């Protein structure tokens, strides 16, 4: 059985390899490298589903060229991402690299993009510095600072004075902590305590106990997408919600993909983020409906819009170059592009190639028996604050 499928695999790749050169002129290939196995599978699945949805909705022919999407799993390991990127460029002759679920995966690919002048669309990874690593990188997701700074602004404006921060102890967590703390302090807030939680951490009880002891107005939280659920349940379990401590943070912690499973624990959590499944625009309603239909009811989350808009960006760039796949021309076409995304209006900053978008303040509420991030305030045209600060 295995042997047969293995042989089939060999045959299939042989065929694919044989077929490449002839079709190369008419086909433009996009290499989508995402984690589809390992701990970050969910992110990869959202990206893949969104990319495929976009292509289904908008056809696979752009500027006279046929668009082909090649999906590869890197299992979240940087050396795989780099290897696959190299192979896709060299063997499959892709014109775009896309995906990149985590920061190191994008970092590992950056020099390859530079070297081969292939545009690289970062659809998820959120560390500020990524776009500076190669002039061929464009980002359609968000930067951590965008949400962290905005929620700090919001907190300062809304009578929150004392905050305990609790972040996962890894580089993005450190960034999220620093962005928030700096901004919040500059607006006159007080940080009572900064807690860092180990990555391998099944139980938040002890950390939350410290929070109870510190009696802040709010607890600011950043964890990798998914871990937040456990935290929130335990937050409510120990009655922190009733003791008047508010839970705030970047929107990663109320990931739309997992939110329905949180239970009522999550109600009332306030976060800042670039996308909510509940975003009240016609475009988004259509997007959500189509996405759920195509993926057995799975909710699109913030990762998905990165993938959706990433493919849109590629399509638009190709239209502008008339189907030419020269890397520099494509980059020039991408810079400054503006469009209406399911998340709202967004654009690519022509200077930094990073995304400029509206950041929404949302509160978790129950609607028709399901939990949603309901937007109630917005901060338009937010650029990456880290890069803005450097100027």
């Amino acid at each position: 059985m295995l042997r047969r499928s293995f042989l089939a695999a060999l045959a299939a790749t042989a065929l694919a390899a044989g077929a490449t050169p002839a079709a190369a002129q008419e086909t433009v290939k996009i290499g989508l490298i995402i984690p589809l196995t390992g701990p970050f599978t969910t992110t990869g699945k959202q990206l893949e589903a969104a990319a495929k949805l976009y292509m289904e909705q908008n056809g696979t022919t752009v500027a006279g060229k046929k668009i082909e999407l090649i999906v590869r799993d890197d299992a979240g390991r940087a050396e795989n991402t780099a290897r696959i990127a190299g192979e896709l460029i060299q063997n499959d002759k892709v014109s775009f690299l896309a995906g990149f679920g985590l920061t190191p995966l994008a970092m590992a690919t950056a020099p390859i993009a530079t070297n081969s002048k292939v545009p690289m669309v970062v659809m998820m990874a959120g560390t500020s510095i990524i776009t500076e690593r190669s002039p061929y990188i464009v980002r359609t997701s968000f930067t951590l600072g965008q949400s962290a700074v905005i929620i700090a602004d919001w907190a300062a404006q809304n009578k929150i004075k004392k905050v305990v921060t609790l972040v996962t102890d890894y580089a993005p967590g450190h960034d999220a902590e620093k962005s928030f703390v700096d901004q919040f302090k500059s607006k006159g807030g007080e940080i009572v305590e900064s807690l860092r939680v180990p990555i391998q951490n099944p139980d938040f009880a002890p950390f939350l106990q410290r929070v109870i002891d510190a009696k802040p107005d709010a607890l600011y939280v950043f964890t990798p997408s998914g871990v937040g659920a456990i935290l929130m349940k335990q937050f409510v379990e120990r009655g922190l919600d009733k003791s008047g401590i508010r839970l705030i943070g970047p929107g990663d912690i109320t990931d739309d993909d997992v939110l329905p499973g949180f239970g009522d624990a999550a109600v009332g959590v306030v976060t800042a983020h670039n996308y909510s499944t509940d975003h009240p625009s016609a475009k988004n309603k259509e997007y959500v409906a189509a996405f759920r239909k195509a993926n057995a009811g799975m909710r699109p989350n913030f990762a998905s819009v990165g993938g959706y808009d990433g493919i849109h960006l590629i399509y638009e760039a190709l239209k502008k170059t008339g189907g030419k796949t020269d890397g520099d021309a494509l980059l020039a076409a991408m810079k400054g592009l503006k469009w209406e995304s399911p998340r709202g209006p967004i654009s690519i900053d022509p200077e930094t190639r990073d995304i400029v978008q509206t950041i929404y303040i949302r509160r978790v509420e129950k609607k028709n028996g399901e939990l949603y991030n309901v937007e109630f305030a917005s901060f338009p045209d937010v650029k990456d604050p880290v890069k803005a600060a450097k100027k």
Partner: protein
Amino acid sequence: MSSLDTAKDASNVMTRKRSWHWLEYAFWLAAAASVFLLPSQHALLTQIAIWSLFALSLDLLLGYAGIVSLGHAAYFGFGAYVAALFAINFTGEPVTGLLVAGVAAGLLGLVTSLLVLRGTDLTRLMVTLGIALVMYEIANQMSWLTGGADGLTGMPVNPVLGFFPIYFRQANSYAYVLVVLFVLFVVAKRIVHSPFGYSLRAIKGNPLRASSIGIPNNPRLIAVYTIAAAYAGIAGALLAQTTPVVSLTYIDFQRSADVLLMLIIGGTGYLYGGIIGSALFLVAQKFIGNITPQYWEFWIGFALVVIALFARDRGLFSIVERIAAWRKRGAKP
């Protein structure tokens, strides 16, 4: 007692085990040829060669000294970080980097080996695992130095020995990794066929008897653990030099587990097991992954179960042996 009568003959029988079988020549020639013949697969082959070296280092421990490790990535990752930091701060010459990484990982191995001497398989499994987990946490916590989860980038890669550029030269880079693998393989082969290597086999086979014929078990185990750690460190350094980022996945549990799997698939105790195992594992992962990027793990898992059902200690190799034996039996009814 015909030809075995003289001491020289007897000696020859023993030393012959160290000489090269024609299949081995063929294997290395094929490997060398792949530098010129398979340019499209160089990236994959480079990875295979690096995993092979890593698995080879584990084979020295497991296949010859009988020490099970579920934390070998500790040394791999440590070597990678040392090589990257050394290149950033001192020189980007790769061979120097390998040596420094090897020495550093070896020292770490020397120190930590003291924890691994006692106990059963399970104890050793858990202690090595614990060491690797602690190393992982350290690398994560010291993000000012290692970049933590964002990874460490900006490592310069100069031409090897000053004249052989490997940065963004896929073929050269593969050739470089292959040469390092070959050299270290030859060294490993000498080691396992030396008196030291045989004393390790004795300790693995029967530690009680080994010590009662005068073998100092602990110093020998410490020595082989150090050597294996140095090998792993060099493998890590190679990966660091051929990938633009060193990240926490270099040192994570998954890597320790994967290398153990590869070695067991290929079989322990004959040095080629790690090479065969890593080649099979990565090729299968790539090609099954291309067909079903989401669910290739299922088929790999299925393959592992099948291999485990039919193989013996030498992994896949023993399946071949068994088929051969079965055919022979079939041939003469």
